[in-house]
């Protein structure tokens, strides 16, 4: 089965995709409104927390980090999907990525923007957050370049700006299409401005390809480093359960994993909401699912490596944390993580489920839940069972305000995403056309592979 039908007319592609920019269906408004409401819950929580103090998160000594940090890692992880699909698979010439990478790339940007919020709501003095930036100042005071948190701030900022750039650059030809197909109003002005006078000339295409490839090449190490650095927040510390050398690859694998799971979820939603059945096809879904399964196994392996290296080391404190995770009050969550992260993905290995939309939808949500639990199980148990037994606190539970903000982050993400989908083409028109064009030409030439597609 082909990834997409090869005989879709170019005009139809334009029409289908551009249609997604127009006349929101009722369902769209429902989702948008719901997202807004959910987000405003978080705004309310934050206003309260800002006024009263961080204590409303119900964090304490020793649990100085709580849900916000766990959720921060979760969203950072989520962001890796876009880079995986748009940059890595681009370099690998995996064509099937083409209809779906755009929204994945948007996901990257928006998850980063969501993750950033959690850093903000986490710090005790939000109003002084700029102290952590190396801005020039008369007093010659600089941030601490030794701190992984500072690397974090820089890496995330770089990653976010590069991702936005990548998303935008990749969209230029499509923006021109939109410009040319829309005749008046703010959209016309917006697309005209953003398409930077794209004419589709040879020279433009050539420059475009080089630019896109360059950013893609730049983005890949960046994505790896971002989550490695987030891993470094933990691995660079000296705490039992965190001071693990395999954390960076483990975090990256986890990131790709949760990113893939989220792609499946969004794939299914978009396919349904924007009626993109033509482009977001089952064969593509199947490929994504297989990729997800592979990553799930990598993640499981790295998990096992971590446990084994802790178990067979002489670091009793770390071992105690591991035992505590498996047997203490956090055990339901920890085993939940193992179940969702390492057992549930086997459903994906079963052929007939690889295209079963309801099953995949449910599985993808479970995988995401597992990945969220993973982050929480990285953060909380170490705090509850550190080096110093006197301060052990196995029963810390986040407050409703903290949960409120975690909940709201999904609203915020959805909100951004929904707006994006109505303003920008969420399927790459020019690349889908490449797929269609490519294959027709190919057929006409009688299967001569040596001929270029262009």
């Amino acid at each position, binding site marked *: 089965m082909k990834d997409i039908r090869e005989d879709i007319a170019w005009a139809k592609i334009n029409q289908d995709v551009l249609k997604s920019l127009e006349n929101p269906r009722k369902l769209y408004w429902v989702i948008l409104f719901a997202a807004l409401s959910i987000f405003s819950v978080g705004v309310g929580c934050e206003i309260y927390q800002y006024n009263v103090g961080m204590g409303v998160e119900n*964090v304490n*000594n*020793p649990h*100085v980090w709580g849900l916000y940090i766990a959720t921060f890692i979760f969203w950072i992880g989520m962001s890796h999907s876009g880079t995986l699909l748009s940059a890595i698979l681009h370099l690998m010439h995996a064509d099937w990525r083409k209809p779906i990478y755009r929204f994945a790339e948007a996901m990257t940007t928006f998850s980063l923007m969501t993750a950033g919020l959690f850093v903000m709501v986490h*710090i005790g003095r939000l109003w002084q957050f700029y102290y952590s930036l190396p801005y020039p100042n008369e007093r010659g*005071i600089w941030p601490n370049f030794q701190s992984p948190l*500072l690397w974090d701030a820089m890496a995330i900022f770089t990653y976010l700006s590069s991702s936005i750039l990548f998303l935008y650059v990749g969209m230029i030809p499509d923006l021109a299409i939109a410009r040319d197909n829309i005749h008046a109003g703010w959209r016309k002005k917006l697309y005209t401005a953003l398409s930077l006078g794209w004419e589709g000339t040879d020279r433009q295409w050539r420059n475009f390809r080089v630019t896109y490839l360059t950013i893609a090449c730049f983005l890949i190490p960046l994505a790896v480093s971002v989550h490695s650095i987030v891993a470094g927040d933990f691995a660079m*510390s000296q705490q039992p359960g965190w001071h693990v050398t395999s954390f960076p690859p483990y975090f990256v694998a986890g990131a790709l994993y949760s990113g893939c799971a989220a792609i499946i979820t969004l794939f299914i939603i978009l396919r349904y909401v924007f009626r993109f059945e033509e482009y977001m096809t089952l064969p593509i879904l199947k490929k994504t699912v297989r990729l997800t399964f592979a990553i799930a196994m990598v993640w499981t392996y790295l998990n096992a490596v971590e446990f084994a290296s802790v178990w067979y080391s002489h670091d009793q404190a770390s071992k105690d944390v591991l035992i505590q995770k498996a047997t203490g009050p956090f055990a339901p969550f920890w085993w939940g993580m193992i179940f969702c992260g390492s057992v549930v993905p086997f459903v994906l290995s079963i052929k007939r489920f690889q295209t079963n939309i309801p099953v995949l939808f449910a599985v993808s949500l479970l995988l995401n839940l597992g990945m969220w639990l993973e982050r929480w199980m990285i953060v909380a148990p170490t705090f509850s069972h550190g080096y110093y037994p006197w301060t052990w606190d196995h029963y810390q539970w986040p407050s409703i305000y903290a949960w409120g903000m975690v909940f709201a982050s999904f609203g915020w993400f959805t909100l951004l995403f929904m707006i994006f989908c109505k303003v920008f083409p969420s399927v790459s028109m020019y690349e889908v056309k490449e797929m269609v064009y490519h294959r027709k030409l190919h057929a006409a030439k009688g299967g001569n592979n040596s001929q270029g597609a262009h």
Partner: protein
Amino acid sequence: MSVTNLLENWSQFRHFHPVDDKPHDPYKWAMSIDLDTCTGCNACSVACFAENNIPVVGKDKFEHGQQMHWMRIERYWDEDVSNPGGRDFPDQGAQFLPMMCQQCEAAPCETVCPVAATNHTPDGLNSQIYNRCIGSRYCSANCPFKVRYFNWYDYPTDDSVWPAEMNQQLNPDVSVRSKGVMEKCTFCVQRISAAKVTAKNEGRLVHEGEIQTACQQACPTNAITFGNLVDTESRVHKQWEAQRVEIDKDKQEKDEEKGGTDLRGYRILEELRAYPSVMYLERVRESAV
């Protein structure tokens, strides 16, 4: 504003101690705490509240683990007491341990702070700059002893903490911390600074006995000794020396020799190589009863 400025300042605020080319001189503040005389009476902890404007958080916040005592007295039972098969009674008593910031020489809290709000002073203190702190709490996350206390709420404006009149007790030499910043034992740095200024004005060094930390001053059993480790005349120096505890080692003579060494000085979690500035002396229990 230049790179030079950056680099210069960088080398300024990262003091690594102890290093051979930059030995502690003329001061290195340190403590020793004798667990055999500490009775667990809590006088030191209350003194620390009084001296350092520590907020009393109240029942609800204490329940949530948000208490602020920079000096906490831990009470341990022997491992086998009231365990199945163990002793019914703690018939060798309990053991008390005063725990506060250990003023680590290679402090794990310092390296991770994104804004360098907590860093090392040349006289070997782990200092905390409230104004600089953004409240990331990374320092606390990385402190092995968990002796950092965060201002989860805005205690100065909380009417139950320092209501009218009660606020008149606040020590003007110590700032009152607002919400969102980290705090911890400072070794009563305000007392150290005052003594250093006096000594400097008089053209001399601070001498032994001139500075007492508030906890030390209150302690009815003199279990706490504080002083300048560099000063060979100081009691703390003599105690460390007698116990063969060296600040930049992670294994002391006592650990290396098996059996009775007549030494009972040790530092907690020394193997983590934070090089704490507080030496504890083991509790002794009579063998004849």
